[in-house]
């Protein structure tokens, strides 16, 4: 690989400048994906450079993995081939922001944290409270398809991504959608790029609808001896007129997890007392509105929590920040807390969450595997298995859990995937779940966008 690096570097340097081609093995280490190191990393400075690089790679049959802050490159199967890392972090301009229209156009390498500051100057925001928030780029976030607690109210990126520009595997710069809030002109190709891990195109620019920031918000937590009544409260809330912004259910293990060093690294402020319990399940919900609305939420939530059998509940005020930060950063915190963290993403109908969770818990219990659970109100469960060791014996135990979860999910017409786990376990854990009926159609689309299979090859199957 290093010889390929040496030979292609001068030609890549012609495109981006020598200072933006990295071929030094030590620096390339940080571009590794699943233990594979590319021959070179190229820091593109514009969409035009991205297109040039792809054309070059396509002529040379070099495989590219596009990347931003490289916080979520572990998602997906190991790339089949990986010659070039295409680093997009220099594409960091806010191209257009029209606060009056609540629309935004940004380059893919813009950091989410920096963008939040730009928007907050106009009391606006993007409802993407995603993990790795302080590092992650907007392009990486969209390409990885990772969700956020705010989806309870605002939906996911597919609900507010208005359009994007991307470069195909043939080096064609193309766009889809636009920058107006309503648009049915042409196929919604931009939706295809969400969560596609760069396999259909390299995202270079994204257009979003922005949202007004709520003036006042509060949180509410209720604690329960077991998971079932916590899910019962979730059901009561969604049946009511209340429309909270976030709604998560945490297992008792999360209290411990959120006190560890990784958690402190993501937010140095200590967790406020009374938010999570080390012995009980917690439902945590956030909401916004005027004073009367906040009062209504507090009264109704407290009443519903009592009806559901909560052992305690509390309205949280302004001291919430650390709790919210940790909730957002559940995944990185879980990943940092075990040498072999395996995080399942389970999706079922909301009313079946308690049922599938019981299966997962039972399988982990039987295999003596520590775990932590964050369930979103919309029907998504992050089930983190946190073994103390990374070895073959552990893999077998985790594999048993994966089998149980996949089977139970399939029975419920749900989905189970493993976005995060040790690289060497990916195949045996069946990280994309059971085979899918639309796999052939996906393959045909891959052919359209990337006929030579040089963009993130092999990450889906």
């Amino acid at each position, binding site marked *: 690989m290093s010889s390929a690096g040496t030979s292609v570097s001068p030609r890549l340097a012609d495109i981006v400048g020598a200072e933006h081609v990295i071929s030094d093995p030590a620096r390339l280490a940080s571009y590794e994906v699943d233990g594979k190191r590319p021959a070179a990393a190229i820091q593109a400075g514009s969409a035009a450079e991205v297109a040039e690089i792809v054309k070059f790679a396509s002529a040379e049959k070099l495989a590219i993995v596009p990347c931003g802050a490289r916080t979520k490159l572990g998602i997906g199967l190991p790339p089949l081939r990986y010659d070039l890392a295409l680093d997009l972090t220099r594409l960091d301009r806010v*191209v257009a922001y029209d606060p009056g229209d609540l629309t935004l156009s940004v380059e893919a390498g813009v950091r989410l944290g920096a963008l939040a500051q730009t928007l907050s100057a106009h009391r606006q925001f993007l409802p993407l409270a995603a993990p790795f928030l302080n590092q992650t780029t907007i392009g990486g976030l969209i390409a990885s398809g990772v969700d956020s607690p705010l989806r309870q109210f605002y939906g996911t990126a597919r609900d507010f991504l208005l*359009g*994007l520009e991307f470069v195909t595997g043939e080096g064609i710069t193309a766009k889809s959608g636009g920058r107006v809030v309503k648009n*049915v002109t042409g196929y919604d190709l931009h939706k295809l790029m969400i969560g596609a891990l760069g396999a259909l195109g390299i995202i270079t*620019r994204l257009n979003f609808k922005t949202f007004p920031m709520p003036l006042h918000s509060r949180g509410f937590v209720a604690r329960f001896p077991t998971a079932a009544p916590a899910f019962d409260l979730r059901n009561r809330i969604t049946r009511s007129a209340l429309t909270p912004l976030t709604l998560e259910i945490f297992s008792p293990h999360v209290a411990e997890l959120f006190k560890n060093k990784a958690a402190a690294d993501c937010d140095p402020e200590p967790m406020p007392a009374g938010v999570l319990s080390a012995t009980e399940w917690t439902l945590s919900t956030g909401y916004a509105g005027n004073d009367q609305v906040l009062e209504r939420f507090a009264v109704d939530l407290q009443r519903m929590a009592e009806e559901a059998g909560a052992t305690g509940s509390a309205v949280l005020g302004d001291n919430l920040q650390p709790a919210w930060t940790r909730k957002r950063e559940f995944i990185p915190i879980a990943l940092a807390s075990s040498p072999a963290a395996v995080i399942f993403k389970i999706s079922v109908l*909301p009313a079946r969450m308690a049922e599938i969770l019981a299966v997962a818990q039972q399988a982990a219990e039987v295999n003596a595997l520590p775990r932590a659970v964050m369930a979103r109100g919309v029907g998504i469960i992050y089930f983190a298995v946190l073994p103390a060791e990374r070895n073959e014996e552990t893999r077998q135990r985790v594999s048993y859990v994966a089998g149980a979860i996949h089977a139970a999910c399939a029975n419920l017409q749900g989905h189970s995937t493993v976005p995060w786990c040790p690289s060497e376990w990916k195949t045996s854990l069946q990280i994309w779940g059971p085979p899918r009926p639309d796999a052939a*159609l996906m393959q045909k689309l891959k052919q359209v966008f990337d006929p030579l299979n040089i963009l993130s090859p092999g990450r889906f199957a």
Partner: protein
Amino acid sequence: MDSRLLHDLKSLLGAAAVLHRPEELLLYEYDGSVEVARPQCVVFPRTTADVLGIVKLANQYQIPLVGRGAGTGLSGGALARKGGILTVFSRMNRILEIDIENQRATVQPGVINSDLSAAVAHAGLHFAPDPSSQKACTIGGNVAENSGGPHTLAYGVTTNHVLALEVILPTGELLRIGSAALDPPGYDLLGLLVGSEGTLALITEITVKLTRLPEAVKTLLAIFETLDDATETVVEITSRGITPAACEMLDGWTLRAVEAYIHAGFPLDCAAVLLLEVDGLREAVDQHAEDVAAVCRAHHAREVRVARDAQERDLLWKGRKNAFGAVGRLSPTYYVQDGVIPRTKLPATLRHISAIGEKYGFQIGNIFHAGDGNLHPLILFDARDDAQFRRVIAASDEIIQFCIDMGGSITGEHGVGMEKDRLMPLLFSELELDIMRRVRDAFNPAGLLNPDKIFPTAKSCGEIHVQPLPLAGAPVA
């Protein structure tokens, strides 16, 4: 048409489900647009198996195949442009499953939009997308066109509410795309299929999200003496971050047409009204309504009326949703545009549309989803007069070009169909159109399904000599 095909279709579906005589086909030459195209036959499947059989026959006889719901579309999407078999889903109109607990419903494509909402109202739920034609249009058509409606401002368009589809590919494969559970792994094929205007697959089942009805609703009618005051109000409501459930505008001319028909109580002597709705928790709605009213007054609203009860509110909405019908009483034909602009450009755009009307000598009415920046200029004309029709198209193209110059788009909710295909090169380069064509071909390799839609045909392509735009938001060189 081939008598063997006719025979095969009748054997498959029964004679009562196949129309082929010229007088029977007449009705199916039209949809809600000004386009005309006659199918060779019209068939009415009742089951997924029927549709599979139809697709197989279309392949066997290599004849075009077009899906159609109620035919209320406004871009010719459901017309058989190249003839062939028009498959009308009106008899596949069963609601298959309602899951109140999970707020899901699964329906056949021919279910009428408002019928679904009516069926779940007892549980305090509804299907949020509400096109003005919702009492006639089908959910299958809504999915194909990614339909909008007044309340999509706060609730989102059809694509935001569809979770899964059962589809039949033009090659005859039956597939489920998406699922009632969220976040199916892999590429978002569902997002691609919704709004693909019937060019990728025929839809045989749809699973949607149901949305809780708001606890409280307030509907306001703000009356303005000038068009500018009304549009400036919309700009400020948007920029202040107030998101009403709906924000519709009717200009004075349209109002008078509507009032003569519906008697909704609209003022006859004003330049424009805004029909605004706020909803949510009781505790929020009063303040929300007051915030909206304050902006209206700050922009010289002559009066801000609040509907006193559900009856008054329904009457105002009846006026809005039947506006196209009201205009239809005044003119043999009208042409509706569907351009979208950034909301900040509303005042300039409305002034420009008015100038275009004067330039071409047409009455142009404006009734539209102001809060979304989705315009519906209505140009009245007589389609029997060819010269007039050509001038209408020229005026309409000028409006669309202005929308594009403002950073907008050519269609917000009506679709490209066969009406705006020739405008596609205004927004997309030939390379970009080629990618979309290849996506179509991946699903629809023989081009049998809904041919000659969305993409400019060789002829219409040559008629437009313009450079495509860069992605909206790009700095203008």
